[in-house]
């Protein structure tokens, strides 16, 4: 059985680091990006089954990536953020 694929988009290298190590230890196939554009490229390249997304990204807002992904896919997206804004209807 193939490992589920997780895409993690966050610009904090240390947070990516421990999430990657723990996810890989749990047997997930893990891809990571530090920017929204990078996240989009990886989303297009792999059949991702879960996206963990930070909203504060250096190139585009995380919501930009979320909306772009939602135009093409209903893949579950888990948003990680310190932002105090209302939930986007596109978050699941």
């Amino acid at each position, binding site marked *: 059985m193939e490992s589920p694929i997780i895409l993690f988009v966050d610009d904090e290298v*240390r947070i990516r680091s*421990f999430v990657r190590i723990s996810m890989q230890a749990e047997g997930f196939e893990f891809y990571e990006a530090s920017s929204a554009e990078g996240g989009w490229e990886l989303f297009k390249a792999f059949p991702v089954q879960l996206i963990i997304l930070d909203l504060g990204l250096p190139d585009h807002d995380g919501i930009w990536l979320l909306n772009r992904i939602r135009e093409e896919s209903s893949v579950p997206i888990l948003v990680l953020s*310190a932002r105090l804004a209302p939930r986007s209807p596109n978050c699941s």
Partner: protein
Amino acid sequence: MNKIPSFPYATSRDLVLALIIIAAFISAAIFLEKWLVPAAGTALILLGGVIVTTLLTKPIIGYAVAVMGAFAFNILFTAPRYSLHMQEVDEIATLVVFLIIALGSVNLVSRIQQQNSALADAQLRAQLLLSLSHDIKTPLTSVLGNLTTFQSYQQRLTQHEREELINGAIAETERLQHYIQNLLQATRLEYGAIALQTKPTDLVELCRDVIVRFDQQERFELKYSVESVMIDAQRPLLEQALFNLFDNALRYSPAGSIVQIETLVTSSQQYLKIKNENSEKDYQVIKQSFQPFANQSSNDTKLAGTGLGLAVAASIIKAHGASLEVTRSHRSTEFTIRFETTFID
């Protein structure tokens, strides 16, 4: 945060402004007197002068102008004119009512201003808490995440992964420590608790010492026209300011790009320039970030927290009698520190 006193002292600007306002309102009352109900109309105009003065100056001046208005009403608008005597009962009643309403209005305006100050103070405190919670939360999450991952999976991890987790936790702890140092420094500077004890310091050597504190030393390019540029400085403090500026330049420029540090000397001034590539968006945020905790909003981008480091740097540089300015050209941001009174070896 600075406490705003309930009754701040009046300045000479306030006094001059108050005199101009009340003179203008008295003139208007004299001019309009023939078209107004004799006593009540002029009293209302003077009351307007009292309220405008209080709004534009200080409550203490408002009280003084209220009393002054009462005298002006008595002397200029009641019979017999140009005297403190009063004969008409309705005019005496108008004067009493004027004085009560004028003093009451000043009191009311003063209370509203105090409430506004308290609200601004509360908003600043809320902003500080938001800033603290966000900027401490990110490194703390990293430390906790790295250590709990290490604890939970250590048997299954490679040596390289274990080292990555431990080194990550150490680096994030250092980041947290640096943030807290800045926070303490910002508080001390805010309360004026730092008295500078300066010594002749070599700026070029100081730059070198700051650069070696970074993991990515190779990204710095230090240029200088003379080997030694002497300035008067309290070394640890200025080192912290430079560290914050260098750190800002490193973090908010493309990976692998060069940060240029340059010292320049003229006959009367020494300059230190820090130049790095970055986006217009980053530049705008940096430009607005010179107030402590200024860049807090609902935003959680990597730039959160920049304000504190830059504000501390700016305060330290200012305390040294130097100036700091930020400019933008050719897709780069440049910080220039200008030291005025120094000497050169």
